[in-house]
C-alpha cells in the first residue's frame, strides 16, 4: 500500500484525522520506516503546530509536548532526571528525530523512554481533551491509542529517588536486552509507593508489580534488594527475539535491577 501524507496546521486537525484512522507522523523514526517498507497506513497526517515542541517546567512537574525530541530533552537542564533515559535512545541522529510521544508507541524492543515515564507516573494529555490519562492505561494496549497524544505531564522526582538502566549488546548504542526504571520515594528512610517499570520484558513497557510490592515500606538494604532480585521477573512475560530469549531476560532481570538499586543507593 502506498501512503498519502497530509500536513495540517493544528493539533486539533491532526487529532480529527487520527480519529478517522490516520497514522500520525512525528519524528519519523517509526512511521517513515514503515512507509519505506510499504507497511504504513494509507493515510498519514502530520502537523506543523509549534505547540508540539513546547516544554513547560513548573515546580513539581514538567510538561513535554509530544513532539519534543530526545535531543531537546537532553539539551534542557531542568530535565536532567530524564537524561539517562533520553541518552540511551538510538544514536545521535535518532535522538534528533525521535519524539517523546512517538516513543510511547515504539514497538518492542524500542520504547525505553516510555519505561522511564511509566516509572515516573507520567500522564498523557490527549489532543483536545483536558486532564491527563495515566500512562499505565495507555501502555496496556499501545496498538490502539484512543486519541492523539499532545503532551506528557511528568512529575519531577526528588533528587536521588529515580534511576534508569538500559542493557544493550552493543555499545554505546544498541537496542534493549532490557531496560528498567525505578522511582523510590522515601519517607523516613523507608520506601513509600515505589514504581518500577520494565522495557523489553513484555509486549511493551510494563510495571514491575512484584518488585514494587517487595520494596514498599522497606529500607533499601541488601536484604531487601536480595528479596527483590529473587522475584524481579515474576509477572513479566519477556519476548524472545534476536537479541535474547525470554529465559535470558528473566534470568538477568533481577541482576540488572539489583545493579540499578545499588547504583541509586550509592547516589
Amino acid at each position: 500500500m502506498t501512503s498519502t501524507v497530509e500536513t495540517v496546521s493544528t493539533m486539533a486537525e491532526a487529532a480529527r484525522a487520527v480519529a478517522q484512522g490516520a497514522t500520525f507522523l512525528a519524528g519519523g523514526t517509526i512511521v517513515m520506516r514503515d512507509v519505506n517498507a510499504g507497511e504504513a497506513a494509507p493515510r498519514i497526517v502530520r502537523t506543523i503546530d509549534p505547540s508540539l515542541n513546547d516544554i513547560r517546567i513548573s515546580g513539581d512537574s514538567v510538561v513535554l509536548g509530544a513532539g519534543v525530541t530526545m535531543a531537546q530533552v537532553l539539551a534542557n537542564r531542568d530535565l536532567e532526571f530524564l537524561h539517562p533515559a533520553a541518552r540511551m535512545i538510538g544514536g545521535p541522529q535518532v535522538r534528533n528525530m525521535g519524539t517523546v510521544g512517538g516513543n510511547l508507541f515504539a514497538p518492542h524492543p524500542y520504547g525505553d523512554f516510555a519505561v522511564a515515564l511509566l516509572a515516573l507516573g507520567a500522564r498523557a494529555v490527549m489532543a483536545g481533551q483536558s486532564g491527563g490519562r495515566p500512562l499505565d492505561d495507555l501502555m496496556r494496549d499501545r496498538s490502539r491509542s484512543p486519541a492523539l497524544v499532545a503532551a506528557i505531564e511528568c512529575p519531577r522526582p526528588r533528587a536521588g529517588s529515580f534511576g534508569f538502566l538500559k542493557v544493550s549488546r552493543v555499545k554505546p548504542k544498541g537496542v534493549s536486552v532490557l531496560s528498567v526504571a525505578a522511582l523510590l520515594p522515601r519517607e523516613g528512610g523507608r520506601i513509600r509507593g515505589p514504581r518500577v517499570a520494565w522495557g523489553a520484558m513484555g509486549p511493551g513497557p510494563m510495571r514491575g508489580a512484584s518488585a514494587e510490592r517487595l520494596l514498599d515500606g522497606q529500607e533499601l538494604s541488601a536484604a531487601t534488594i536480595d528479596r527483590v532480585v529473587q522475584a524481579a521477573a515474576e509477572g513479566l512475560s519477556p519476548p524472545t527475539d534476536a537479541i535474547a530469549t525470554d529465559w535470558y531476560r528473566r534470568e538477568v532481570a533481577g541482576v540488572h535491577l539489583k545493579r540499578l538499586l545499588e547504583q541509586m543507593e550509592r547516589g
Partner: protein
Amino acid sequence: MIEFRKEFFADERDDDLNEVGKPTRRQDILGHVTGRSPFFDDHLFDGLLHMRCVRSPHHHARIRRVDTAEAEKMPGVVRVLTGKDVPTNLNTLLSLLDFGIDDEPILSTAKVAYRGEPVAAVIAATEAQARAAVKAVRVDWEVLPHVLDVEEAIKPGAPTVCEVYPDNKFIYHGKYDHQKLRFGDVEAAFASADHIVEGRYQMSPIEQAPIETCGAIAAPEQNDRYVCYTSTQALFFSLGTAAKVLQTPSSRLHFIGGTVGGGFGGKVDSIHEPLAVLGAMLTGRPCKYAWDRGEEMQVGAPRGAERWYIKDAVARDGRITARKFIGYFDSGAYTRLSSYAIIKGVGHLPGPYTIPNVYADVYCVYTNRTPATAMRGFGITGVDFAIENHMDKVAETVGVNPIELRILNSYRDGDMKAHRREAKNCALVECCQVVAEKGGVTLSPDARAATSLTGGGGERAQIPNFTATDEHGRVEGFDTGSYAQKASAAATAPQPPRTLPASQQPTSRPVQPPASHQPAIPPTPAAQPAQPAPPQKPAASRSGAMRFSSLSGFRRR
C-alpha cells in the same frame, strides 16, 4: 599499535623498492571522502523502473498457482515476471566453471525450498508501487514438510530439499556423497594413542553485511546492447551468468562495476544482474533490482553454518598423531558455492599442523534455508574455529601450554601436507613466538628456538606408506570425472544420483572404528534405503548444445 617485524625473513626480502611497500594513499580515497565515488546506485536514469520480488513465506512448498492479474493492474506496474519469462530458468553459479549441476531457478515455478525464495518479480515506476503490487500477487501454496538441521537432512526419509540431489547431499566427482581426505591410517593411530580428544563445533550462519546492499541497474544501450551497473564482486561471473540465464551473447552485455560498498563474499552470487537485464529487455526501460536491508539479511545468502566433529590421537608430549574430521556444510536449499568451499576446506585440513594421519569426510548438505554462499574466509573460517578450539582442548588434556602446543605441531618448510603437497613458505612458528613474546607467555627453550625453516622435511616429507581408503558414500548415476568437468557428466546422467544400499557398498577396509573410540563422532552416514522416485528434475537447460562460457570457454551443456 602496529609494528613491522622486519627482522623476520629479512634475507628473503629486498626492501629497496620505489613504490611497493610505501603507505601510499588509496587511489579512490578522494572520491570516498567527497561522496563522489560511483557506486552502482549512483548512476541516474530517467524513467528508472524498480523491481521487487514476490517471495515464499514457507520453508518448503509446492507452487500450485501464481496469479499476477491483480498486481498487473496496480498503479505504476509495468510488468510482472514469472519463471516462464526467464529464458533459462535454472542455474548454478559454478556451471560457468563446469562444476555442479544447474539446480536453482531464477524465479521458481514448481516449488520453493526456502523462506524468501522468489516466485515472481514486479516491475513498477516507483519502489513503493512495486512493493504494493508484490502484495497483490496471489500464490496458491501447498506446504511441504521441511528440514533445517544438517544431520536430520541426511537421515533416511528426510524431505528432499533439492530434487537434483535427492539425498540432500552434493555429489563429488560423480562418485561420492561427500569429499574425502585420506592420508595414512587414523584408526591405527587412535588405537595406540596416549590420549583421544574429541569435540563437536558449530559455526554460525553469518551475514556479510556490506553497508551497500546488493543490486544492479540495467538499461538499454546503443547497438542492441544492455549496460548493467552492478555491485558484483565478480564482474565476469555476473556477466556470464546473465548471458546464460538470458540466452544472449555476452557481447550484448556491458557490465560496469568495480566500486563496491563492501562485499565480504555476499556479492558473488549474481542474483540481481540477470533479472535487472531481463527487466530492461522486456520493458525497454532502465530497471533496478536491489535488496533492501531485510532481504540482504534473510534472503541474501549468508556464510553457511558448519558443523564439525574432530577426533585427535595425541601423544603424551602433545604431538598429534592422527586427526579425523566429519564435517557438514549447511548449503541451504541450493548449491551456490558451498560445494567448492568444501574442496577448498578439505585442502586446508588438518590446519597448519603436520599430522601423520588425517581423515576427513565433508558433506555439502541441503536444508530448507536460505542458500549459503561465500564470506570472508569461505571454507576456512568455520573449520579454523573448530580446529583452534580443539587445540585448546588438546593442550588442556596433555597439560601443555597452548602456544607451545601449536609450535610443537606446527608445519615447517618441507613437510608433507595431507593433500600430498609439500609445505613451503611457512611462518606459523614465528607468528606464535611473536605473540607469546608480546603477551608475556614464557615458552620453553625448544619452542623459542624453533623456526619454520628448520625441523621440517626428512621423514616429515614422506607420504605415508599405507593410506586406508574406502568406498563408503558411493553413489551411482553419475559418470565419474574430475570435479572440474562434472557438468558434462551430469548432462548424460539418466537419473538423479542415488546412494547405493549399504549391502552393495564396496569397502576396501572397515572405516567404522570401535565405538568406544569416538562417541562424539556420529557414525559414518549409513547408506539410505531407496526412496520413492523424486519428482522429475527440471531438465530444460540440459540440452546438448555447445555454449560459450566467458569463464571457461566452450563446453557442452
